[in-house]
C-alpha cells in the first residue's frame, strides 16, 4: 500500500496545456475521487499517475518514490478503464491471469490470486465465458478483478461505471465502496458524476479546466465550497444562484438585496465582507428552502412545473423577473396542482459569492 503525491504536474499535448500545475497528496489507503466537467483533465491526470502519459513538468511520487520515469507496469498500480478494456478473445479466467502468465508468475500463485479475485467479486461461475457473453455489470466486475489480481498498491479507476445503466450503476457503486473497505488499498477514482463522488470518496478533488479547484471531504465540499463552481457542482439538484447587490456590510454580516426577487433583502453572516454596492451572488440549495415565514427572507414564486416523486417534490418556479429556481419540498398530497408558492431562505444555509465566484464567509 502506498500514498501518491503529485507536485506541480503540468501536461501539454503539443502546444495545448491541459493540466496547469496540479499538486495533490493522496494518503495511504485513501479513496480519492477526481470530479469535474467533461474535458477538465481528470483522465489525463489519472493516466499520468498510471504512467500511460508522461508529465510535461512536475513530479509524481508513489509510496515516496519518484516514478516519473518508471514504467507503468512497475509503479505498483492497477487501472480499471471506462470501456473495461477486456481482452475480447480470452475467457474471463484468461483475462484475469493474462498479465501474471505473461510475466512468468508461478502457476499456483496465479491460480490462487485469480481464485481470490473471483471470490471477492463473485464471478466464479463466469470464468469460462468470453466478455461478449457478459452483461455490463459482469464485465465491470471482471475489469476490477483484473486489477485485483495484480495486488497493486494503488487502484486507478477511470469512470468505471459510466457505461452502465442507472440501476446497475448504483449497485456497482456500492460494491466498489465495499471493495475499498475490504482491501483498504489506496484508490483514485475518476468520475464526472457528483453523486458517485459524494458517496464513494474519502476525499474529493474538484477539477476545472486542468486546475484543481478544491480538495476536501465530500460533506465539507457540500457544506463549505470554496467557490461558486464547486458549490454548483456538488449537490443535486443544483444549487440555486440569485443575483444580488450589497446594501450594507458590517463586521460579521452583510445585507444584500436580491435584485430579481422584487428587492427582497436578506442579511447573511459573512466576516470577510464585501463592499457596499458590490454585485454578488446568493446561493441556496433546493433542499434548504423553508416554508413561508420560517426562514429569513420570503420570496414569492410562480410554479412552472411541479414534479411529484412520492416522498419529495421538486418545484420548478420562476420569480417575477424570470429567474429560475428549484425548490425541494417534502411531498404533500394536498399541494398537487398549486400555482404559486412562497419559499423562505434561511440565512445560515445560504452562501454568498463575489463577482469572481469566490465564496465569501
Amino acid at each position: 500500500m502506498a500514498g501518491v503525491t503529485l507536485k506541480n504536474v503540468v501536461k501539454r499535448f503539443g502546444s495545448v496545456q491541459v493540466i496547469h500545475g496540479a499538486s495533490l497528496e493522496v494518503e495511504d489507503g485513501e479513496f480519492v475521487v477526481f470530479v469535474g466537467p467533461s474535458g477538465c483533465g481528470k483522465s489525463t491526470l489519472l493516466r499520468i499517475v498510471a504512467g500511460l502519459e508522461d508529465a510535461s513538468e512536475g513530479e509524481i511520487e508513489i509510496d515516496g518514490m519518484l516514478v516519473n520515469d518508471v514504467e507503468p507496469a512497475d509503479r505498483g498500480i492497477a487501472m480499471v478503464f471506462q470501456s473495461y478494456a477486456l481482452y475480447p478473445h480470452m475467457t474471463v479466467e484468461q483475462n484475469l491471469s493474462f498479465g501474471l502468465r505473461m510475466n512468468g508468475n508461478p502457476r499456483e500463485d496465479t491460480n490462487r490470486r485469480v481464485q481470490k479475485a473471483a471470490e471477492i467479486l463473485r464471478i466464479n461461475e463466469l470464468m469460462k465465458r468470453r466478455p461478449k457473453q457478459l452483461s455490463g455489470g459482469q464485465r465491470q466486475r471482471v475489469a476490477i478483478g483484473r486489477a485485483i489480481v495484480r495486488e497493486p498498491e494503488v487502484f486507478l479507476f477511470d469512470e468505471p461505471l459510466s457505461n452502465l445503466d442507472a440501476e446497475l450503476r448504483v449497485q456497482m457503486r456500492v460494491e466498489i465502496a465495499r471493495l475499498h473497505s475490504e482491501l483498504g488499498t489506496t484508490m483514485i477514482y475518476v468520475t464526472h458524476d457528483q453523486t458517485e463522488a459524494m458517496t464513494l470518496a474519502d476525499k474529493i478533488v474538484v477539477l476545472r479546466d486542468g486546475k484543481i479547484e478544491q480538495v476536501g471531504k465530500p460533506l465539507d465540499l457540500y457544506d463549505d465550497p470554496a467557490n461558486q463552481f464547486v458549490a454548483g457542482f456538488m449537490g443535486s439538484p443544483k444549487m440555486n444562484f440569485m443575483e444580488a447587490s450589497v446594501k450594507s456590510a458590517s463586521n460579521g454580516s452583510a445585507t444584500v438585496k436580491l435584485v430579481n426577487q422584487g428587492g427582497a433583502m436578506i442579511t447573511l453572516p459573512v466576516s470577510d465582507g464585501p463592499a457596499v454596492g458590490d454585485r454578488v451572488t446568493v446561493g441556496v440549495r433546493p433542499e434548504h428552502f423553508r416554508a413561508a415565514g420560517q426562514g429569513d427572507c420570503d420570496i414569492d414564486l410562480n410554479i412552472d412545473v411541479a414534479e411529484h416523486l412520492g416522498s419529495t417534490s421538486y418545484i420548478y418556479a420562476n420569480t417575477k423577473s424570470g429567474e429560475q429556481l428549484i425548490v425541494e419540498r417534502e411531498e404533500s398530497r394536498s399541494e398537487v396542482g398549486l400555482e404559486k408558492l412562497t419559499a423562505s431562505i434561511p440565512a445560515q444555509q445560504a452562501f454568498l459569492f463575489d463577482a469572481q465566484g469566490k465564496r465569501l464567509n
Partner: protein
Amino acid sequence: MKPQSEMRSKSSREMIRTIGLHAVLVPLAIVWLFPLWMMMVFSTLPENAIFSAQIQWLPGTHFWANFEQLQADTGFLRTLFVSIMVALVYTVLSVFLTSMAGWALARYHFLGKGMVLAIILGTLTLPYFVVVIPQFIMVARDFGLANTWFALIVPPLFNSLGVLFMRQSFSMMPGELFDAARVEGVKEWKIFLFVAMPMARPTIAALCIILFLASWNNYLWPLLINNQPDMMTAPVALGSLIGLTRVSWGGIMTGAVLLTVPMLVVFVLLQRHFVAGIAAGAIK
C-alpha cells in the same frame, strides 16, 4: 535517481524503435514505388534509351513524342474516352442497382429474402470464369451485341459485393429514421431516394471509387467482347500492344502512365474513402 537522464533513456528507447521502424519501412517503400517510378521514366524515353546498356534512373524528354506515336498508331485517346465513358456509366448504374437491392435486403421482410441473400453470398466465392464463357456466347452470339456499349457496361453490373456493402450501410442506419418518414406519409421510394441515399453518401462515395476502379481496370471481359478498335477500352488496347514492334515500349509506357496517373491522383485525393471502401468491402 536523476529524472533528467532517466527521461533521456526513455526517449532514446523510443528513438531506437523509430529508427528500426524506418529501417524496415523505407527500403520496402522504395522497392514498392520503384515500378511506378520506372513506369514514369520509361514513358519519357525513346526506344533505344530503354534498351540500352545503362540503367536510366531519371526521366527523359520523350514523353510527347511517345504519346504522339502511340496516338498516331492506335488512337489511344479514343480508347481512353471509351474507358472513361464505360467506367462512368457503369459506376452510376451500378451504384443505383446495388443500392436499390441493398435497400430492399436491408429494410424489408419479404418472401424469398433469405434465398436472395444466400445466392448473393454464394456468388461472392464463385470465380467469374464460371460464367464468362456462356456470358460471352450469349451476349455476342445470341444477342449479337458484341462491340456495343451495352455489352461493355451491362453484364458486369451484377456485383454482389456492392449489394452487401450497401445493405450493410442501410441496415446500420437507425430504423426509426425511416419510421419517422413513414409516419409523415412519405412514400417508400421517396424515403429511399431522399432519406436513405443521401445518408449513405460516404458509403456511396467509397463504392463509387471501387466500382470506377474495377471498371477502369477491367481487362478480361472487354478483351473478349470487343474486337473493334473504336470500341476498345484503354487497358485492352494497351495489352494488345505488348509484344508488338509497331509501337515502341516508350509508347506503351506512356499509355500505362495515362491509365495509371489519373487513378493515382484520385487515390491521393480520396484516400480516405478509398481505404474505407476497400476495408469495408472486405470486412462487411
